[in-house]
């Protein structure tokens, strides 16, 4: 299987995604400030924490521009959790902070009695070849893609929200596929196969 590059900006869910890739026998290397991605491999961008903090870490490592350039040149790119949110233009979590802007739209906070959403939720797709299933979420914010066609999966938490996006070479999962048992691991494996 294709080797993938895992963007390591410290902290976050890097450990659990690494272990997930190991279990799936997907070879990967960690990329970061000292070893920036060069576009020869598909890119996974994880992220846990605040939108602004993740963008700060990326820019401190000089990676925001690198990822933007590679993604615009066609390198397959998978954002997970905050890694998905920063694919968009901005977030109400960190006003004034620009996201990667690879997808049009913004990120907003849930209007629900309990925030963050913590737990398993059911996701469905309008694409018949993407099966519905249960995935594990931990998020206070969710993306609102400006282009409806970019929505890959939807779910409901005090109202409908976008659970996954896909547009050309850009994919994003708001949930944690690495913590979503077999269904989640299959989604990661499918993405890696699709970008082969």
């Amino acid at each position, binding site marked *: 299987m294709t080797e993938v590059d895992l963007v390591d900006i410290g902290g976050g869910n890097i450990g659990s995604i690494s*272990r997930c890739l190991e*279990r799936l026998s997907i070879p990967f290397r960690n990329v970061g400030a000292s070893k920036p991605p060069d576009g020869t491999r598909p890119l996974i961008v994880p992220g846990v924490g605040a939108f602004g903090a993740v963008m700060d870490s990326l820019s401190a490592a000089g990676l925001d521009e690198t990822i933007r350039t590679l993604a615009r040149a066609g390198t397959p790119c998978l954002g997970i959790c905050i890694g998905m949110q920063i694919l968009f233009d901005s977030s109400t979590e960190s006003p004034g902070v620009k996201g990667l802007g690879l997808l049009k739209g913004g990120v907003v906070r849930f209007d629900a009695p309990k925030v963050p*959403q*913590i737990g398993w939720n059911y996701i469905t797709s309008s694409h018949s070849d993407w099966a519905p299933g249960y995935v594990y979420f931990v998020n206070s914010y969710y993306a609102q893609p400006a282009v409806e066609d970019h929505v890959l999966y939807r779910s409901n938490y005090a109202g409908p929200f976008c659970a996954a996006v896909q547009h050309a070479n850009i994919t994003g999962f708001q949930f944690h596929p*690495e913590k*979503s048992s077999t269904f989640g691991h299959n989604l990661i494996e499918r993405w890696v196969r699709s970008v082969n």
Partner: protein
Amino acid sequence: MSTDLCKRIIPCLDVDNGVTVKGVKFGDLRIIGDPVELAVLYEKQGADELTFLDISASRDERATLVKLVEKVAHNLSIPFTVGGGVSSLDDVKRLLASGADKVSINTSAVNKPELVEQIATACGSQCCVVAIDARKTTTNGSGSSEPRWEVLIKGGTVSAGRDAFEWAVECVERGAGEILLTSWDKDGTLDGFDLEMVRLFAERLPVPVIASGGARDAGSFIDVFTLGHADAALAASIFHDGTWTIGAIKDQLTQAGVTVRLC
């Protein structure tokens, strides 16, 4: 087809000296010594999360917990929480770095409430679970007729002299992402969850409440979700003794109209 967040079922495994799970019967299978095997079995059964509680007596024995956490992380693909004897931010960071998704703190939070903030700030609220052991009290300090519960620490042996709900509110304000609420009155009784207490906490706190203590059968889980409004429910013995599988409980919950993750 469900559209709401699923109610979670969380088996709890007691771990001693990093390896031992005591008195676990699993149908014909009896597992002693390897909590990882049991954890994998529970994931296959449909557990939504797992909690490991370290009951080791000494600090040295607790060091072996890290190895266990690493092994669990490599074998599970659902989230898991580790608690028991966690007393500093360094402890928390070590467990998270070893692969735990969340860490629960109990007595140490009561003794040092700023630990909750430290964890939330350094690691995020999502991994900061505060466990509260609560006992119903007849003391009625405020003069109101509302039922009250007091906080117990040190494994339920000592009263902290605090109101459990007020303490839960403070924990949330300090950054706790979830509250694991154990009823001292119900724990080990197989008498069902403390619905009155769970409902009070689950309805008023803005974070998920995990109910614990007293699970007897599928009916206990139906009650704690439909009447207690818990976000998740934790149990040990009814899973360990093999009388109920998680799948069987989830089937009953589904029939009762409770949204759960089906595998």
